């Protein structure tokens, strides 16, 4: 008993102050890919390298539309290996309230060889929240939770078919390092006790009914957060005979957290974003 106490005291506080402090992510971590759209010569190499179709080309009548979908991106970095115009950043806080906010499109005129001749329009998406607003988001959170949810946010995690990678990081939210209890956030055992469903996917055919039933069992007001490349857009599995793809193909989703898997900072960022959504309802 004394030993337990001694160890706790000598260990001290290990809990991160995030979001008051920036995400403690290695400079080598692979986060959002950055594409130099204006100088991009040819999107086809990156498209072929991408295992999840997060980068896709559609050619029509001498024009090409390139789509970068962070909701599908597994942040593997293969596109950056194939194409010097792409750089992997370590930006991991990518949660968005609308699926289309994760999608960036660019239009090009192409030449007869299929390379880009002229950059037409950037169409940048309104990607998530600027990092600066995160502090205030954290500060607002306590107020909102107090008001809407009686000082606490109860989350039910639902694995609707994931590979368990997302679960490893979600479990980490309860570790002393991330400790989401400091926000008044608890993981609960039943959807009936929950305000939020944190859903990982892709939704397998065998889990579709269980997910629907879990959603129905969650009392209003409820928030659904889709987690990971598979939860947001089906990931590498996509839609097939056994997989229904992203969570929003089955139940409505309020916030999307990209990543493969999203790290605990990205998850906290997404959950806080989602609670902001709650008062907007």
């Amino acid at each position, binding site marked *: 008993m004394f030993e337990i106490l001694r160890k706790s005291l000598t260990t001290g506080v290990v809990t991160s102050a995030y979001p008051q402090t920036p995400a403690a992510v290695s400079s080598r*971590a692979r986060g959002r890919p950055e594409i130099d759209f204006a100088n991009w010569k040819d999107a086809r190499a990156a498209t072929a390298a991408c295992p999840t179709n997060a980068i896709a080309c559609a050619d029509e009548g001498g024009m090409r539309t390139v789509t970068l979908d962070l909701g599908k991106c597994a942040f593997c970095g293969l596109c950056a290996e194939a194409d010097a115009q792409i750089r992997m950043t370590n930006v991991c806080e990518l949660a968005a309230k609308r699926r289309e906010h994760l999608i960036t499109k660019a239009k090009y005129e192409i030449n007869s060889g299929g390379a880009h001749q002229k950059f037409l329009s950037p169409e940048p998406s309104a990607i998530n929240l600027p990092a600066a607003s995160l502090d205030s988001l954290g500060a607002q959170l306590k107020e909102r939770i107090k008001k809407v949810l009686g000082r606490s946010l109860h989350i039910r995690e639902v*694995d609707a078919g994931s590979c*368990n990678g997302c679960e*490893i990081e979600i479990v980490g939210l309860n*570790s002393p*390092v991330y400790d989401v209890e400091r926000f008044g956030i608890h993981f609960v055992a039943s*959807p009936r006790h929950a305000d939020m469903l944190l859903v990982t996917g892709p939704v397998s055919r065998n*889990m579709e009914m*269980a997910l629907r039933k879990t959603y129905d069992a969650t009392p209003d007001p409820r928030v659904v957060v889709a987690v990971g490349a598979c939860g947001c857009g089906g990931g590498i599995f996509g839609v*097939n005979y056994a997989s229904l793809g992203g969570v929003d193909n089955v139940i409505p989703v309020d916030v999307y957290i990209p990543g493969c898997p999203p790290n605990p900072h990205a998850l906290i960022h997404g959950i806080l974003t989602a609670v902001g959504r709650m008062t907007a309802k």
Partner: protein
Amino acid sequence: MNILSSLKPILADLTERFGPRIQAVHHARPNEVYFHAQMELVPGFCAQLYKKWNARLVSLFADDARSQDKTFHVYYVFALDSAHGFFILRIPVPAERPLFTSLTNALPAANWQEREIQDLFGLELEGHPNPRRCALHDDWPEVFPLRKDFDLKTVLPPFQGERHKFRQVEGEGVFQVPVGPVHAGIIEPGHFLFSVAGEPVLYLQIRLFYTHKGTEKLFENMPVTHGVQLAESISGDSSFAHATAFCHAVERVTRTEAPPRARALRTVCLELERLYNHVADIGAIATDVAFVVANSHAMRLKERVLRLNEQLTGNRLLRGMACLGGVRRDWDAEDLQAITRFVAELRPEFDSLVDLIRESSSTRDRLETTGLLKPEIARDLGVVGIAGRASGIDRDLRRDFPHAGYDRVTFTVPVYREGDVLRRMQVRIDEVRQSFSIIEQVLAALPEGPTRVTVPALPANEVALGYVEGWRGEIFHWIRTGGGNRLARCKIKDPSLQNWPALSEAILGNIVPDFPVVNKSFNLSYSGTDR
């Protein structure tokens, strides 16, 4: 191709005993020999290997070869651990009479794998004691997804919700406790039906495959290079081990070998994966007997490993590091120093965590004799990995089939005979200490040179077995190549599939509240099983 000399007496014995009934012998690689025969040979061949040569069946799967051979094939992969080789028996199953003989009565280890073949290929089992559906749930229409004439993108009618007919357990005071598929904790989906009388469990039925997402079919429908990323998503906690097993299979089929430095880096990554999972499991076992402080420390240490992973590979789960022909990133002096520092700091921290748990007599009291898996049952079920080693099964591919850089390090394989939760935890504790030592040995003699070689295009219609000892147990990826640099089949064998039935045995006679800790002591992957 020459085969290992240790395999020659076994090969001679089989050819002498079965003579012309073995129609062909194909030496694919020095430690991988294929035998072609008819179905009637299977029981005798299997018995001879088991009884005389102490072999074990490590994988059993089917392949639709109708387009070129006009038949299905069923493959039986036997590991000859002490002779360090694999003997693989291939038998045809004619398309017009799709029946094959079950081995389950003699060899319970084959149970789930045989039923999976029946579900996914429509090859009907003869003589199976429980031929109910397993991989596809009861509401699935009559489709056989792994046949080549079934399209990956087939749209099936929505789930109709037909109930699974669980076995009924009846008697005075007996009642059923259904759990899942959505569980109370942050874990994967599966359904457990406990039949209990009072608190003790009389019978446990496990229904899985909720996360079946067409993974094996998907391998056949993507470029082989993308297969590495898909392999990383078979079971997230074994991302690197699965990806490496896949790379190993492709490298063997293309007759390439990852350079020595790449093999060394793979070894370190495999051990880092073992470390974070073992440490997390030790903490989780403590939590399940209400010793939460120990778990807090364990999670703190796990986070240290994940952050090191991120620095070394760009991803906390080591994703994006594996690639065909080696690894994608070399480590510089700074990285290597970080690893050395990490081992130096974590080792005493880990020892202190173990002391904390060991000194808690109430924890030991809850773990000892809980969830017993007897060595005889473990052997019959073919239990592998940590669960096997806690029940007297002295097997470890790192020692018996050295892959990556394991031929250049020395380590011991911890084995216990008691088979309880305490020993499954003890195996992990011992292995964590071995991991530290393995990492140090690799770094002390790190080869110089490239970390990646180019892998040529796949030869058409060849087969290869890739293997890795993941943290949970042995992982096999068997591939057959098609044309056009694609795979015609990728069979994934996760250790979880083999070990799940053992959980039903280990829980018998235990009280329901001990199920979480017994389950955690096995910590099996649902996704790895369901694929």
